[in-house]
């Protein structure tokens, strides 16, 4: 009898507390900077071409074989504008297979691939699973729009400079008009950008 009454005090106590619900579709929790949604490719604004050279390193390292990569000769290299001898030709990632293990980011020698760290990487539901196979343009789209959150591991990690933190997202801001790598976006800017970003196809 006493235990039963004690249980009632628990429920009545929580009735008085503030609810913890976040009303998801209208209200987004801020995702952390190191969020790993799905891999996307990064765009080199200095030369106006992707970072990716199509070297197949990520394709070989992928545990679930969700990537298809082909490379071609870089026309910008022939013109002398770029240092990349080869450039990515076609790149497909099957998000339906991807298990988001971050290995492709770790093995990339050119820091050309990163994990999408915005909400757009999570809201991907489609009616046809073929739409989850993204091609090169779709993979580069987010980076071209500069919608990724800046993750600056130098500010985040403390004295442990010997460790090997993963820096690729910091690349996003490394252009003139975007904030420099050392200055992460403010929260207000971030949330504004999040809301502006349309859902991924």
């Amino acid at each position: 009898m006493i235990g039963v009454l004690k249980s009632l005090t628990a429920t009545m106590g929580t009735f008085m507390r503030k609810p913890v619900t976040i009303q998801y579709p209208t209200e987004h929790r801020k995702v952390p900077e190191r969020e790993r949604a799905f891999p996307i490719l990064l765009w080199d604004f200095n030369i106006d071409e992707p970072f990716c050279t199509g070297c197949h390193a990520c394709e070989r390292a992928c545990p679930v074989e969700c990537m298809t990569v082909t490379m071609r000769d870089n026309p910008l290299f022939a013109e002398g504008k770029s240092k990349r001898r080869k450039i990515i030709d076609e790149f497909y990632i099957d998000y339906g297979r991807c298990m988001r293990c971050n290995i492709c980011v770790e093995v990339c020698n050119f820091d050309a691939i990163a994990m999408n760290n915005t909400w757009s990487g999570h809201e991907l539901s489609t009616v046809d699973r073929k739409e989850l196979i993204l091609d090169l343009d779709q993979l580069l789209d987010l980076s071209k729009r500069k919608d990724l959150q800046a993750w600056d591991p130098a500010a985040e990690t403390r004295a442990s400079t010997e460790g090997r933190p993963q820096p690729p997202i910091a690349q996003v801001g490394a252009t003139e008009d975007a904030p420099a790598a050392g200055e992460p976006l403010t929260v207000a800017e971030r949330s504004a950008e999040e809301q502006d970003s349309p859902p991924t196809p």
Partner: protein
Amino acid sequence: MALVLWGLFGVDMNVWLDAFLRLQLIVIVMTVTVMALIYVERKFVGRIQMRLGPMRTGPYGTLQSVADAVKLLTKEDLRPATADFWLFELAPYVTFVPVFMTLLALPFMEDWGVRDLQLGLFYIVAVSGVTVIGYIMAGWASDNKYALLGAVRSAAQLISYEIPLILAVLAVSMVAGSLNLNDIILQQDTIPNALLQPLPFLILLTATLAELSRRPFDIPIGESEVVGGPWVEYSGIRWSIIFALTEYAGLWGMAVLGSLVFLGGWEFPFGTSGFWGDFDFLYQMALVFAKSSFLILTMMLISATFPRLRIDQLMAFCWKILLPFGFLQIVINGIVLMYLDSEVTRDIALFATSGALLVAMAYVTYLATRQPSREARVAAMVAARSIQ
């Protein structure tokens, strides 16, 4: 509407038309109440669980019940190929109609119910017991083992808990000296029956939860065991009749009954002096509303807190604790009412005996469920062998 109000104030008119209008009013009020109750329960339980509850449909989710109703009514009505056609189709109505019939005898205000029956209490108890037949019909007709198990459980549970329910209201009717609900209410103008008879009040609350198959007594439909029990094969409109109408109309009816019989109904704090003249029914309605809301919220709080009992524990609780104490209450009531004439001594005696019985029942329950204390458990933990 004018006609209805005409009927409300007791102006003579055609008996059949009067009855028809009153029935219509009850049907409308019941439907609205059921929808409101569904919303209230979802919000209330949501807050207990530190959630918000429905928020999307309408402001603060107020239209959630409407959306649910539209969804359920337009859903495909499935029937298993091997089901017994007639029993399967009829079972929801057999479950629902008795619940609706109990509403007909309830005096919601002074002189206003659908019908004022001389044996109103008896009628309500008798009619509400028919519900179990619907459960058994559905369980048998569904051709599903979960449904069958649930039907057998409900047969045991609902019939058993009918008896404590009868004993509880019987004790009160002895005090009132009548089975007419109006008389019982009028008798409570100074002291509500819940004070005179706390033990029957508690028994009524418990038995009501069991009769309505609400947690913690939802054994027939316990979804983690028999996945919905008799109703496992129902969907769409038939399921909404069972779930929404039966469950919540029953909850409402029983809460109103409890507030009338035990909490003094529209009579208790203010009496029937009529200080608003013709508009007395407004405060009477508000009183009944407040009291029944209190009972409903209490039941919802209990539902949201406790785990489900097991069927044998539930039956043991009924037959070994509620039933003997209910009988004892009636016997003591008889003695008290027979030998004490003065109203004051009678009330004191009733309160004292019933309170003493309540304490005794709590103690017996404690003895039956006594567990090793926390300290003993800690001691056993310390004494546990470290390695074999």
